């Protein structure tokens, strides 16, 4: 049974659409009025966002005592959510920058969307350190600048490196995203009849005329930005892992954390991209642009990164035993069999067991199943951050200060709000900007290939 012909390159975009058809289908959501379903979805996400706003408002009014954070668990939901959302953003840069450097053509259909997700996820993540400092109006001091109080930041703290890493990452991601959008803005400008839209698109397209010279500059800038974004994406989650790993808390201090966190971030990010794209391709009729093959490739990456995360769990356990360090051994036994065992086993099953189903081709290509697995992956990855943060803190070196962390309603409200914010931004994005890069998709059409043959 021969299904694949390896001597031919598989088409990334199916059905061989013409250039005009691509323009039409991708800009259609921007040129039509939103329908009822859209408003329904928007009202749900905005409601979630409002729940978060209420939670935040109460926290600002009464103080952070409304949260479950206690002594010794000083890092509760806010840090868990921060790490979770920063992680979600990572898939975007992996797809748009790293896969670009690897010349993976299938990324074109999903890159724009994933990159957008990066930006929204980092924005969502940014809220949590701000509120966690307790006095967000003083957060400006996180940036080192000469001031009257001679107040300086602690340069040797990874928490500060986070400020630099995340803000740099956000800036570069935004520029990268915008540069990619310029040719598409020009296309939209040329299509629209509405004067206000035309003016807006004209301003943002920076006078782009699709000329050869423009393209040459564009390609160069895009490659350089991809080169910049690649180390940045690694550095961000590496530094997030440093927040934990430089300390001497058992379960936190382990050298595998940097690559393990990066793999975990890509893992959860891909799961989120896959989830959202399943809806997008269906609703906007992009099934021939974001093909089942593309989804299958994403599932393979989920399998790969999930296995890397599993490797890291195993290695941590092994070395905890091998090291002979008693607090370390206790921390890991406590994780698996202590008061938070429930969270630990949710994490293991969702992150290590379920993604292994992607070894089976049929599951990789069945949309409802892959959707469910990816949802579980995100549940698992959220719990991973919960397990790391909470179990280690709740059982530190001094048994007399041990405590159980119970999140409060306010904590949950803010968590729900973060999802509300993320999905609201996502929904607005789908109606204001092309969610698939028009220019890039045209470049990977079968007819655009130098080795193109008629067959």
């Amino acid at each position, binding site marked *: 049974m021969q299904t694949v012909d390896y*001597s031919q390159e598989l088409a990334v975009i199916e059905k061989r659409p013409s250039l005009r058809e691509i323009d039409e289908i991708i800009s259609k959501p921007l040129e039509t009025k939103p329908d009822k379903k859209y408003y329904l979805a928007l009202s749900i996400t905005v409601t979630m966002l409002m729940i978060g706003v209420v939670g935040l408002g109460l926290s600002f009014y009464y103080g952070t005592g409304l949260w479950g954070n206690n002594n010794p668990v000083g890092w509760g939901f806010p840090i868990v959510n921060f790490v979770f959302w920063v992680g979600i953003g990572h898939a975007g840069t992996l797809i748009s920058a790293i896969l670009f450097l690897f010349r993976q053509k299938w990324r074109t259909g999903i890159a724009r969307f994933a990159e957008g997700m990066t930006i929204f996820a980092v924005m969502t993540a940014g809220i949590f350190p701000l509120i966690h400092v307790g006095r967000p109006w003083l957060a400006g001091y996180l940036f080192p600048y000469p001031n009257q109080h001679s107040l300086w930041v602690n340069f040797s703290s990874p928490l500060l490196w986070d400020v630099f890493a995340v803000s740099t990452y956000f800036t570069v991601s935004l520029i990268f995203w915008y540069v990619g959008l310029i040719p598409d803005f020009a296309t939209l400008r040329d299509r629209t009849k509405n004067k206000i839209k035309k003016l807006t698109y004209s301003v943002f397209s920076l006078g782009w005329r699709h000329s050869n010279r423009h393209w040459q500059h564009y390609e160069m800038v895009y490659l350089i930005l991809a080169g910049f974004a690649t180390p940045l994406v690694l550095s961000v989650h590496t530094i997030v892992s440093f927040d934990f790993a430089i300390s001497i808390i058992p379960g936190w201090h382990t050298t595998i954390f940097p690559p393990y966190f990066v793999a975990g971030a890509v893992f959860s990010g891909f799961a989120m991209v896959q989830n959202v794209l399943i809806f997008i391709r269906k609703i906007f009729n992009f099934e021939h642009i974001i093909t089942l093959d593309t989804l299958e490739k994403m599932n393979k990456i989920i399998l790969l990164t999930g*296995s890397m995360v599993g490797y890291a769990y195993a290695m941590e356990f092994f*070395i905890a035993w091998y090291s002979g360090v008693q607090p370390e051994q206790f921390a890991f036994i406590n994780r698996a069999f202590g008061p938070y065992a429930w969270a630990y086993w949710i994490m293991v099953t969702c992150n290590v067991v379920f993604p292994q189903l992607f070894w089976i081709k049929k599951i990789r290509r069945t949309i409802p199943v892959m959707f469910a697995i990816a949802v579980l992956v995100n549940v698992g990855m959220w719990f991973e951050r919960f397990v790391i943060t909470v179990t280690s803190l709740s059982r530190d070196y001094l048994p007399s200060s041990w405590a159980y962390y119970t999140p409060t309603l306010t904590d949950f409200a803010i968590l729900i709000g973060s999802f509300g914010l993320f999905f609201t931004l996502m929904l607005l994005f789908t109606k204001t900007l092309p969610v698939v890069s028009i220019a890039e998709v045209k470049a990977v059409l079968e007819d655009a290939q130098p080795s193109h043959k008629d067959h």
Partner: protein
Amino acid sequence: MSSETKIEYSKKELPSSFGKAGYTLFAVGLVLVIISYLVDPVRSSFNNLIMLMFLSSIGVGSLFLVAIEYLGGAVWSVPFRRIPEFLGAIIFILPIIAIPVYFNMHDMFHWTHTEDVLSDEILSGKVGYLNIPFFTIRVVVIFLVWMLFYFMLTKRSRLQDQTGDQKLTSSNIKISAIFMPFFAITITIASVDWIMSLEPHWFSTIFGIYYFSGTVLAAIAVVTFLVVYLTEKGLFIKGIKTDHYYSLGALMFAFVNFWAYIAFSQFLLIYYANIPEETYWYLNRWEGGWIVVSLLLIFVHFVVPYFGLVSQPSKTNPKRLKFMAIWLLVAHIVDLYWLIMPTYSPESIPFSWMELGFPLLTFGIMVIVFGIKAKKENLVPIGDPKLKRGLDFRL
């Protein structure tokens, strides 16, 4: 246009100078190695361990390159996939190289001293893992696993030269997928057992990845060198372009950075946490003159190759590629030397003719294995369905 590319390959003999170089390196190396074993067996065993780890890197790292090509569906590397396939045959030499180390284990691995282990609370806690029978079983299993996958992957590739059957590619993809978890586990155990346990109190969860990063970099470096060398000599298939060179150079550059990232992560976390259980390993590589090697490693393994490969023209310049490839192989030896030798001599840096014999023998073995394989088999997988696409490859 480019679809007109024809596959022009006729098997040519490697120049006799290639074989001669190999046998000369091998003979000189072997003589030096035998003499150094007679003079100082313990020191030689440590050097032997470096040789073992280096050749494991090349052997199993090459197998990894083959597998990753199948899994990723890559086409650009197909024309020279035979090179890592040939180098994978080094795996069969590994048991022979391991024998001298095995017989001198008592002088190398502190955990083999039963009486010391019993009086040491930490070490006696590790007896379940660090004991000679279990260690032996692991070594044997690791070698068998590598050999098994070498057989399975290369057998189908060779068969395809005659049949051109696409099903062979399909089954090799499956085998490669199964190989990956085995590769991850075996290479981790190998690095923990053969390097980390030299200082049995020390531990680091990233250690397997650290060795992996060096392994893959070394394998890519050999492949890059051979591709450029064979193309320049006109022994290779026509159609290897700067696009291929560029990709190899970029891959080397990527792994230079990856190694640096992993090495730095390990160092920074241990340095910052400053726990005596962990820091002593780095202190051993700082005191007694070892500071020189530690600092040298940063330059040899990262700074020089980084600047040597960062620019676009340098990745397509054949001279630069060959130089950097050899440089990175030497860097891998320096890395292994830095990992292994401080256990032998914490007080001073042991460096003399004894340390030269082993690398000579190592390179000799590599050249000879490649030469023998190249004599028997095609240098290019001519039956591979992806070959033409690989030759048509453009950035």
